[in-house]
């Protein structure tokens, strides 16, 4: 797919920040043919590696979440020699485990009009028309296989009384296609992949390296041929060689310090490949999840998500009157004191067709608007209500009716309704109470948006191969399927699609040409040099001997990112942010304190290496956000909005993927034109 020559949009800001723009469209290697046939045809005609050759080919996989874990298990089953690396103490700890709400699949079990095309269309639209059509359609196609596979592994999905699989709805869609296992869907799917991986380990097809962090990529003769790892138990720097390297290392949300990501989630594996020449695509596309528990104090280490599934039954509101909001903030009133007529259910008012189930970017911005107007309901002013009272009464009445009980007994109805809500969301309500000390069955929850997921990631072609031959990226680590905004319950789908059903095929396009390549020598000069580079980098950090903790730098970076590159952005702020980040990075290398030594278990050193990388990635995010003079999905530029405050996309100039070459701080922009042959580009409307 080579797009037409385009005219680069250089305005004063892009000139100011000195970036280079390449004028040739990147080639996504999308196979020809009609959208619905591409994958089937391609899969049936792509080169294969024969079983006897697979045994002689080694593949390194970094990360053991849904994408990495599933890929490792599947490649092991196929007969490749697989080496898997995780920095966790066990593959089962990968952050996929924390996904709560569910996984989408176009099964149409509910007979509500769902189809592969509809899932494809919803995903393209939800992503604000900034993803590659062919990849998204393939994702929708294989979604159905994922559910079958998980059920066969023993994943205990929720079921109806008839014994068949249950579904629920998620934001941005009007069908019920989300499969779930209480509020722990990610955990159950990850354990399924972990169990398959464990089976391959026991069969000897996969070698597992726990507590090994990838600290560099090794390129030999232009191809990715291995990685350098640090053994976190004893600090040993190790060289590992293979015919190809696959990253399933997740996203970079922790660049914001406060996010719903796990504390150890980091971008270093991916960023190290960028330092070696891989392109980072759309780094400014970050998802801000509307329903998280608000920040409570300066010591806060992370933010906790309340699943989007709650918006099936919860109604979002703020007081209509400023004085009511003020009284709640000051503790003189609670949400319960506000009369029905004095509440503004703003999502239902602004978006009647989708109501509380608008996509995440829309819901988040609306919460920000309400709080900016002074209607926030927590002491900090940054929270809105998520209220279950109406749902409790509705369900309660229905249960009372079916049991022949008195439907007008409010107390009874409330009790019955509470039981229904408890069955559906019990663990989430419990988690909320543990963290806040407030009972959400009685008082409405308080929520506020927080960084949750990153749509951007390593640029990959249709084969999930980066611009470095032999280096592949899967799951959240790549950029390919969610455009500028990901729909709920689609991250699990994409991770498993890539791991089980896409990469195991597409990696063959590269490996089929490698069957004559002998085992790669980990003592080759390229490996020795990369090992030395890593050691020098570690020595440099210890040599600073400064006064400030790694954590304090991370917090400061997070604040810059949130203030200037968060829920809404503008050119002036982004230019300032880039400068602030550069200064902070200089200060880091002048004054950071890393205690201990390399040759031991040293969590501070682990953090220092990760924060050093965040300090570069953060800068690139501001550059990308500044280049994109439009608003789309999670990227909201204040200069580009409609009169009603909705995102204003500029398809004529920005319907492209921004793939950045880092170039040691002088980024070069490579563009991949997005060509829409099947979907008409429209203004997204959820009204």
């Amino acid at each position, binding site marked *: 797919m080579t797009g037409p020559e385009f005219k680069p949009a250089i305005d004063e800001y892009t000139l100011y920040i000195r970036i280079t723009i390449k004028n040739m469209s990147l080639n996504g290697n999308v196979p020809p043919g009609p959208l619905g046939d591409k994958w089937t045809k391609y899969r049936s005609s792509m080169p294969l590696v024969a079983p006897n050759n697979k045994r002689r080919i080694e593949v390194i996989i970094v990360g053991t979440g849904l994408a990495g874990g599933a890929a490792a298990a*599947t490649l092991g089953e196929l007969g490749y020699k697989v080496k898997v690396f995780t920095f*966790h*103490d*066990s593959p*089962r*700890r990968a*952050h996929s*485990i*924390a996904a709560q709400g569910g996984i989408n699949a176009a099964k149409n079990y509910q007979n509500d009009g769902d189809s592969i095309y509809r899932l494809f269309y919803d995903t393209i639209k939800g992503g604000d028309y900034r993803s590659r059509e062919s990849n998204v359609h393939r994702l929708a196609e294989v979604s159905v*296989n994922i*559910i*079958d*596979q*998980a*059920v*066969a*592994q*023993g994943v*205990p*999905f929720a*079921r*109806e009384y008839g*014994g068949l*699989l249950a579904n629920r709805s998620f934001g941005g869609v009007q069908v019920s296609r989300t499969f779930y*296992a209480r509020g*722990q869907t*990610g*955990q*159950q799917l990850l354990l399924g992949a*972990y*169990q*398959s991986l*464990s*089976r391959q380990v*026991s069969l000897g097809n996969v070698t*597992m390296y*726990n507590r090994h962090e990838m600290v560099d990529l090794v390129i030999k003769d232009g191809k990715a041929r291995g990685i350098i790892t640090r053994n976190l138990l004893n600090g040993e720097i190790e060289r590992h060689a293979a015919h190809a390297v696959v990253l399933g290392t997740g996203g970079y949300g922790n660049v914001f310090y406060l996010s719903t990501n*796990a*504390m150890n989630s980091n971008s270093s594996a991916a960023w190290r490949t960028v330092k070696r020449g891989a392109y980072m695509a759309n780094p400014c596309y970050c998802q801000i999840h509307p329903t998280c528990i608000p920040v*409570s*104090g300066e*010591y*806060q*280490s992370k933010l*906790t998500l309340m699943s989007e599934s709650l918006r099936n039954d919860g109604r979002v509101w703020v007081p209509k009157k400023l004085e009511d909001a003020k009284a709640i903030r000051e503790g003189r009133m609670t949400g319960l004191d506000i009369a029905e007529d004095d509440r503004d259910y703003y999502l239902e008012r602004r978006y009647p067709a989708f109501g509380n189930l608008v996509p995440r970017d829309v819901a988040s911005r609306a919460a920000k608007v309400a709080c900016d107007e002074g209607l926030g309901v927590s002491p900090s002013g940054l929270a809105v209500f998520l209220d279950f009272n109406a749902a409790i009464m509705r369900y309660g009445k229905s249960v009372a009716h079916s049991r022949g009980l008195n439907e007008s007994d409010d107390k009874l109805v409330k009790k019955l309704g509470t039981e229904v809500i408890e069955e559906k969301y019990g663990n989430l309500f*419990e*988690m909320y109470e*543990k963290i806040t*000390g407030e009972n959400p069955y009685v008082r409405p929850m308080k929520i506020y948006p927080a960084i949750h997921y990153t749509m951007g990631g390593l640029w990959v072609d249709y084969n999930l191969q980066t611009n470095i031959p032999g280096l592949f990226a899967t799951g959240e680590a790549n950029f390919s399927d969610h455009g500028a905004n990901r729909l709920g319950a689609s991250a699990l789908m994409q991770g498993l699609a890539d791991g*089980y*059903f896409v990469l195991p095929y597409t990696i063959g396009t590269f490996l089929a040409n490698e069957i004559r390549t002998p085992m790669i020598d980990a003592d080759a000069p390229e490996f020795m040099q990369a090992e030395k580079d890593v050691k020098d980098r570690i020595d440099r950090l210890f040599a600073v001997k400064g006064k400030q*903790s790694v*954590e*304090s730098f991370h917090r400061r970076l997070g604040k810059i990112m949130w203030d200037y590159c968060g829920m809404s952005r503008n050119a002036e702020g982004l230019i300032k942010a880039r400068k602030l980040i550069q200064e902070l990075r200089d200060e880091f290398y002048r004054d950071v*304190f890393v*205690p201990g030594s390399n040759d*031991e*278990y040293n*969590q*501070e050193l682990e953090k220092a290496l990760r924060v050093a990388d965040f300090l570069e990635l953060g800068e690139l995010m501001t550059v990308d956000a500044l280049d994109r003079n439009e608003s789309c999905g999670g990227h909201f530029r204040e200069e580009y909005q409609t009169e009603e405050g909705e995102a204003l996309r500029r398809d004529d100039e920005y319907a492209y993927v921004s793939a950045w070459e880092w170039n040691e701080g002088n980024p070069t922009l490579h563009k991949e034109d997005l060509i829409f042959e099947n979907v008409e580009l429209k203004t997204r409307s959820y009204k």
Partner: protein
Amino acid sequence: MDNMTLTLKLWRQKNANSKGAFETHTLAGVSEHMSFLEMLDVLNEQIINEGKEPFAFEHDCREGICGTCSLMINGYAHGPQQGTTTCQLHMRHFNDGDTVTIEPWRSQAFPVVKDLVVNRDAFDRIIQAGGYVSINTGQAQDGNAIAIEKEQAAGAFDAATCIGCGACVAACPNASAMLFTAAKVSHLAQLPQGEVEAAKRAQKMVAQHDQEGFGRCSNITACEAECPKGISVAHIARLNREYISASLGSETQVN
């Protein structure tokens, strides 16, 4: 309360081969809204600012689901609050002036890595011994091909909710990992997809459990009481049923 002062007694141990000891620190300004781990973050920040080495402790998701965090707090695995991982334990359950003792999991099969961090690789090896359904990717039939009774699926889920943290081992006077092992056996045995291999799975996993050096189960049930996910010892009964049926009916010898 927003300004508690606590006396913290924490375990210090350089590595698996060295001898450990308690170290006492005073921490002021603890807010009731902090999580227990955030309180430790603040302590570590204080220690780093004095130019010293912070305490190593493991944690990741801080949402009670990844199973990475551990800690014996005042003698209880994950602290005195029932059904709660350390990361979800909040300081509102402590009082100003309290002394809090913080130790790593203690078990021969979980060697100390450093300070409060232990090595739980043994759990991976127990799963590798048989904690899976033997199918390859792509072999599955339609997800709705087999109906599974709602309550039965929920029963399997209740076992599958185990987070593999190791609290059961830490709570058990015998340092037995039978609750962990049973949770996986019971999860899969309750589903038609896993039932096929249920008896052999129980045998292989129990054999690995014993080989790792975990103790035998003597029905003390402290594991259930301290399990942050409320996994029931009834699953151990199910494991025993599978195990006995395996030893009676299978050709594989149990040692």
